[in-house]
């Protein structure tokens, strides 16, 4: 079966080409169907591979496609790696991607550029698959850059709005900053190991000792790349702005797949990261602080998509926390459950926006529960999942992270728990303000409120089932389960040296879970009192805020700080370079070269007088010269003869 693995990225690529060529001729629904079928075919092959890997018929296998780079000792083949981790990621990408593609047929069906949309979506799936299926860091990097490109294309999809273009540029540039670190990391890795192939690097790393300085530097550089791609502090500001793109884009790229690329990369390189405790600690700090930071900002956002965007940043922080604690498979588990419920949240938000004809401000929503029942129900399931209420999927994955945190230090658990409470609060705030009480929009909108079509609601329902049941993929031993997800992934993920000795007792774990669930239910109750019973609304934009409220509402002014520190000096430098160096130095050199060429030509042209006599003279002179040269080159023999 593995010999068909090369077809997995092929189908979306074909979808991209077909939709691209037939952009003007294929109908909008047609291009949507082509795109969805392409993803479905990939999903089918991945499914078959998964079954083989799961029942053990296929061990970790590499499929060499062709000899790619082979120069002066640098040998990098183009090969794919099929192992539990890559298969898991591919299932998420193609599975959730398929549902989002189907949803987009309904959502983007009226857009005049829908064909371009599906073209870019397929290209994105292609690059994302390349990212997770690659057998070495370089192919991962191809996918890495490619998804950044597709993110730029899709965020700026409605290109007529200049603000959206700015957001797209911001996303791409911030990604590139991270990519510089990533690239340096790969180069240093090659310098150390003389190979970029995963299996070779990780087996060599197994022989090195913990705390090796080179590995620490490599992992820090790789981390910088992950920070850019997965929107952690300090490179996270692009993600909320990326909400400028269509909602399916936000669901696919900025929730389920692209932003998890950083986590995948670190999980893949777990063999390196376990050798660098300093880096792991940095990851814990960054992950935890990002989770808390973004969650607080989410409390005061009024755009439905921005709330979800900050929620994504926050949940990514949790995943990083898990990675930093050495719980690599837990992080991937949270990636999986997060993909389910976050995609569902975004698609549900899309259904709401669609029903309201483009309104995204939650202050003008409300009471949608009755008009959009399926959307409400699925959104509720997703909200329960993200808050970590059992038995929904989010509970299992988040609780594992918190358990690993308690294992390391109760303080980390405390901060993580606090963030979870804030998460619960702002998510239920969103739910209550959008779906409960009375409608606060215009009469016109109220008239047009309708549940979206089946092509949009069926993916919502499927994702809701996954968001509910996804947790059962990995029932922990605590509840008598088999931890199937962990067992599936453990052959390819490394463990921290101290991982096998678990200090927390079972009773402590039970009480931790009990405490967290109780607190969460309390928060839900408080939120309900505040927003539903007391009908509190967020302030209008015109009211002046004071102190902390103002700080949080303005996202801690981070964008403004970056603008001041980086963007303005860069623009200033750019303008200066243009006005002085470009005009005076570079133009001078180029124009002088041109003028010189013309001058030489005009001087050489003076030979052509048109005077026949001159031409004859030059011809005779030339012949004499040649003869003289020939004769003199035979000079010794001529001399003796004469």
């Amino acid at each position, binding site marked *: 079966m593995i010999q068909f693995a090369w077809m997995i990225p092929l189908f979306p690529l074909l979808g991209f080409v077909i939709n691209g060529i037939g952009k003007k001729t294929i109908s909008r629904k047609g291009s949507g169907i082509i795109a969805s079928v392409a993803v479905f075919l990939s999903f089918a092959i991945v499914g078959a591979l998964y079954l083989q890997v799961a029942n053990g018929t296929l061990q970790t296998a590499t499929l060499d496609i062709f000899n790619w780079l082979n120069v002066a000792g640098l040998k990098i083949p183009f090969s794919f790696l099929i192992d539990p981790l890559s298969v898991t990621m591919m299932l998420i990408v193609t599975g959730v991607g398929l549902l989002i593609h189907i949803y987009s047929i309904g959502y983007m069906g009226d857009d005049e550029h829908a064909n371009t949309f599906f073209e870019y979506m397929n290209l994105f799936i292609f690059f994302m698959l390349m990212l997770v299926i690659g057998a070495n860091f370089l192919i991962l990097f191809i996918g890495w850059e490619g998804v950044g490109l597709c993110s730029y294309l899709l965020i700026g999809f409605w290109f007529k709005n200049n603000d959206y273009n700015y957001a797209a540029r911001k996303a791409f540039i911030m990604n590139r900053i991270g990519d510089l670190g990533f690239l340096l990391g790969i180069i240093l890795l090659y310098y150390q190991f003389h190979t970029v192939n995963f299996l070779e690097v990780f087996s060599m790393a197994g022989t090195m000792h913990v705390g090796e300085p080179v590995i620490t530097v490599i992992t820090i550089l790789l981390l910088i790349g992950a920070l850019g791609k997965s929107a952690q502090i300090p490179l996270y500001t692009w993600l909320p702005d990326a909400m400028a793109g269509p909602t399916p884009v936000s669901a696919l790229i900025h929730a389920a797949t692209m932003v998890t690329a950083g986590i995948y990369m670190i999980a893949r390189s777990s063999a390196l990261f376990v050798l660098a405790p300093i880096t792991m600690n940095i990851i814990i700090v960054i992950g935890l602080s990002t989770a808390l930071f973004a969650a607080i900002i989410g409390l005061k956002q009024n755009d439905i998509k921005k709330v979800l965007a900050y929620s994504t940043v926050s949940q990514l922080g949790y995943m990083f926390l898990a990675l930093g604690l050495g719980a690599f498979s837990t992080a991937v588990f949270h990636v999986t459950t997060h993909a389910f419920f976050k995609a569902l949240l975004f698609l549900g938000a899309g259904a709401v926006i669609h029903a309201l004809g483009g309104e995204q401000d939650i202050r003008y929503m409300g009471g949608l529960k009755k008009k959009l029942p399926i959307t409400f129900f699925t959104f509720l399931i997703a909200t329960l999942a993200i808050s970590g209420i059992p038995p929904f999927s989010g509970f299992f994955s988040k609780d594992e992270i918190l358990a690993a945190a308690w294992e390391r230090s109760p303080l980390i658990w405390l901060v993580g728990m606090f963030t979870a409470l804030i998460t619960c609060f702002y998510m239920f705030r969103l739910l209550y303000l959008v779906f409960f009480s009375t409608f606060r929009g215009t009469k016109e909108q109220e008239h047009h409120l309708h549940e979206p079509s089946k092509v949009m609601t069926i993916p919502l329902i499927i994702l809701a089932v996954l968001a509910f049941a996804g947790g059962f993929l990995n029932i922990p031993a605590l509840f008598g389960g088999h931890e199937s997800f962990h067992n599936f992934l453990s052959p390819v993920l490394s463990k921290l040296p101290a991982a096998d000795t678990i200090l927390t007792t079972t009773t402590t774990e039970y009480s931790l879970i009990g405490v967290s669930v109780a607190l969460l239910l309390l928060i839900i109750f408080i939120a309900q009192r505040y927003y539903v019973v007391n009908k509190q609304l967020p302030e209008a934009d015109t009211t002046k805020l004071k102190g902390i409220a103002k700080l949080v509402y303005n996202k801690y002014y981070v964008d403004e700080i970056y603008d001041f520190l980086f963007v303005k000096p860069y623009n200033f430098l750019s303008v200066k370079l243009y006005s002085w160096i470009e005009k005076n130095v570079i133009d001078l050199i180029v124009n002088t070269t041109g003028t010189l060429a013309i001058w030489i030509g005009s001087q050489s*042209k*003076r030979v*052509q*007088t*048109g*005077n*026949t*006599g001159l031409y*004859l*003279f030059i011809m*005779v002179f030339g012949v004499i010269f040649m003869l003289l040269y020939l004769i003199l080159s035979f000079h010794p023999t001529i001399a003796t003869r004469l």
Partner: protein
Amino acid sequence: MEKITNAIQVVPIQHYIYLSLILFTIGIVGALLRRNSIIVLMCIELMLNAANLLLAAFSAYHGDAAGQVFVFFIMVVAAAEVAVGLAILVLMKRNNHSLDINLLNRLRDNN
């Protein structure tokens, strides 16, 4: 052939070479410096004939008839070339109403 060879040994070969050289030089100088096109054509003929003379002289000195056969070839070529040259000359006279070779200067660059 031996009779000619013996007879011609009276005049040393250097004289033939010098004569041929002088004729050739006169031909070149004339072709370059004269204004009348007919004179230029005559000078070209003169150059050809200087070469003919030298060929014939060496052929006689070495008793090898190949040189004289080659002279025939050259004469034929000269004749053909004169025919073409005179045709060009006739056209030139028709267009410019003069045989001055300096009037053929329209291939020059105009600025």
